């Protein structure tokens, strides 16, 4: 056995404190890491805890192990009770090798480095090296690993075998066959997570490639995830194709607002233009993935129809005004109406508002008079919860790995918690509209936010008798057409705040772009409306809410990237 004793870990320091409970310990390049008692980790995960990167293509934490790419080859051994270390004679795939107490992993020996470089050279043999025209360039694991672990030159003298690209494999996904490294992550995803099984490996040996069954394209609702899973540029998103080089994108942590699952996402933007949403791993929220409804459902952010400036009715016409005038008019109308009859003042809080915005509006109106009525806006529900993986007939299987919820708003629970606190009960928007139609509502503050429409023409017709109708929304609607004061607000990508998902997980959304033209994020509008001093700062303001509302007390601590579960 060729030895490389120099790189071997030296004798580990003993964990001989009698009182201490012995945790299983793994040695990674001579560094000790403890793993939990019941944890089932492989070498890649154990090494990550020691800040050692083991390169890998085919392994993904959410998919089964195939150990086919051979990129994660490491030396593995055992520390015997007498302190000696017995190493296995060959390098083994780290993704397939579980660790236990006393496992020794070596990733920096000459043998491992040689294996990594050889694997990369093999994977790059027939790779077209078209990085300049490849969308993955900049976030490509072939590039990164070649830089860190590979050779810089190819020794191949023969012409490369380049397989032709596929004309069509799906509505959202393109396949550049020549760039593929056959890690089969995409194949396993469609079999194990979406359960739809559209993708497969056809042919064998050097002829093997990813393909669909003829006439069965990959058009399931999770199809976009194969683009994220692909470690190279073989699967690309048609929506994002050639739109932007990825190194120009700046991303902000956010939460997908398209259903109550509340998938953690990154919003990638450049020059105030959003280019794509990508799922951010969060085991508390959704796992590793997101659905295509959310992934491609953000286009309204840049819609030309967006409300771009505040307007108020002056005379018989509604004209654009500056924010001070619009907010003064709103404040004056609310105060006049409260003075004459507080019961005739009402507001509708949309489940698209953040907790902070709901709190600001509810607190301000209740401070004018406790008799002001607050209602919850319409909670849009489309069909039933859509569970994945599916079986052959398209029915959900028992072990659910991903759910697209029927409730299509991001923050019903958060807004309900605020309403419960200030009012004790939750009024539906329909009840308020009945009162409004009967002329019992003098001043009504409506907050929209649902980009797919939240009020019908018939419902809006019952607002005819409202003396002052304030509408705060980002897109025109039947209500905004009748508004006396129109406040142009922001989309989720323009706001800071907190969304509470269906399971009570509160997650922060962060501003990634500025609102178009004169429109402002809701938090700022309501902050100014409430006459507070300073600037709206969601992460600071959250503490005030946590102190006042017991149901939201969990927001008091530092909000980590994966959010906090409300009690």
């Amino acid at each position, binding site marked *: 056995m060729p030895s490389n004793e120099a790189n071997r870990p030296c004798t580990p320091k003993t964990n001989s404190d009698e009182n201490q409970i012995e945790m299983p310990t793994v040695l990674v390049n001579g560094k000790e890491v403890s793993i939990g008692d019941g944890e089932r980790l492989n070498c890649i995960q154990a090494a990550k805890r020691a800040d050692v990167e083991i390169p890998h293509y085919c392994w993904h934490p959410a998919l089964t192990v195939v150990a086919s790419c051979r990129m994660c080859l490491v030396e593995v051994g055992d520390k015997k009770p007498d302190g000696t270390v017995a190493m296995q004679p060959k390098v083994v795939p780290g993704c397939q090798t579980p660790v236990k107490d006393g496992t020794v992993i070596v990733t920096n020996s000459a043998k491992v480095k040689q294996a990594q470089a050889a694997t990369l050279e093999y994977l790059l043999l027939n790779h077209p090296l078209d*990085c300049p025209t490849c969308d993955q360039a900049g976030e490509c694991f072939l590039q990164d690993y070649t*830089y860190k672990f590979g050779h810089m030159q190819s020794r191949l003298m023969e012409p490369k075998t380049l397989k032709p690209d596929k004309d069509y494999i799906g509505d959202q996904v393109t396949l550049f066959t020549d760039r593929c490294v056959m890690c089969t992550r995409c194949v396993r995803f469609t079999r194990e997570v979406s359960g739809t099984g559209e993708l497969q490996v056809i042919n064998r040996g050097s002829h093997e490639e990813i393909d669909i069954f003829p006439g069965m394209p990959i058009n399931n609702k999770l199809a976009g995830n194969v683009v994220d899973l692909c470690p190279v540029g073989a699967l690309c998103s048609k929506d994002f194709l050639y739109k932007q080089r990825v190194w120009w994108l700046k991303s902000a942590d956010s939460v997908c607002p398209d259903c109550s699952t509340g998938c953690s996402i990154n919003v990638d933007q450049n020059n105030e233009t959003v280019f794509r949403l990508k799922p951010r791993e969060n085991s508390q929220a959704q796992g590793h993935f997101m659905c295509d409804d959310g992934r491609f459902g953000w286009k309204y952010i840049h819609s030309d129809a967006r409300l771009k400036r505040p307007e108020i009715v002056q005379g018989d016409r509604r004209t654009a005004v500056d924010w001070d005038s619009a907010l003064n008019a709103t404040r004056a109308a609310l105060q006049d109406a409260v003075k004459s009859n507080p019961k005739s003042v009402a507001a509708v809080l949309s489940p698209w508002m953040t907790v902070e915005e709901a709190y600001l509006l509810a607190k301000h109106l209740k401070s004018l008079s406790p008799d002001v009525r607050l209602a919850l806006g319409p909670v849009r529900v489309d069909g039933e919860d859509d569970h994945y993986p599916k079986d052959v007939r398209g029915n959900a299987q028992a072990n659910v790995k991903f759910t697209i919820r029927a409730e299509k708003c991001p923050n019903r629970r958060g807004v309900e918690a605020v309403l419960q606190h200030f009012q004790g009960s939750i009024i539906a928007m329909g009840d308020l509209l009945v009162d409004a139609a009967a002329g019992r509502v003098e001043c009504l503050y409506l907050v929209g936010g649902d980009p797919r429409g939240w009020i019908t023409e018939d419902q809006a017709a019952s607002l005819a008798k409202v003396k002052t109708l304030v509408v705060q929304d980002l897109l025109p609607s039947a209500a905004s057409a009748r508004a006396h004061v129109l406040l142009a607000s922001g989309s989720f990508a323009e706001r800071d705040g907190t969304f509470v998902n269906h399971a009570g997980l509160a997650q922060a959304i962060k501003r990634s772009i500025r609102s178009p033209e004169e429109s402002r994020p809701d938090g700022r509008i309501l902050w100014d409306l409430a006459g507070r001093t300073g600037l709206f700062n969601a992460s600071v303001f959250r503490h005030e809410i946590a102190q006042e509302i017991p149901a939201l007390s969990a927001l008091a601590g530092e909000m980590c990237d994966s959010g906090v579960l409300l009690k």
Partner: protein
Amino acid sequence: MPIQEKDVVWIEEPELSFWEQTFLPAVAGGLKVAMQHTVAQRSVTEQYPEQKPDLPLHYRGVHRLNRDEQGRVRCVACMMCATACPAHCISIVAEDASKDWPDRDKRPQSFVLDELRCIFCGMCEEACPCDAIELTSIYDLTGQTREQMTFTKDKLLSIYDQTKDNPRDPVRTHRGRLGCASELERQPLSATSPKPPESPRAKKQ
């Protein structure tokens, strides 16, 4: 690949000798040059514009976009030039080319270069992986409006058509191998001096 420690060569500053420390030889050398200028008066002023300057071969003037063998734009819209550009003067919109051009994935739908912002550093030329953007020897660039100085893809291609036969502006780089300009012993005569692209002054002449 990151620079390896073994590839780094550390060098020491050479030590000055006794006479060098006095600076007297350097002072004498300087005086000699000054005297030469005083005694032998050679005129260095060029009679521009009647007499055109003989620019060095590496002079960096107006950009051009090269064409490939089939007359198509060579650029593959990889945006390396826009990334490398320190003045942020290049903006490219890419599009899928595979439908019309089976050998290519990507091409520029629009390629706009703001010559007013450009600092003519030549980084775009250096960054280009397919020898598409190059700087020509055209130096007298004028325009009456900002729009005239914002060069589009068509204009940049027309500069290629205008300069490609000029011996001073050969297609220079060939993927690492230097172009024919590097093999020229002396500068070619400026008999076929390039004309500036549609500058108003050229129209008047």
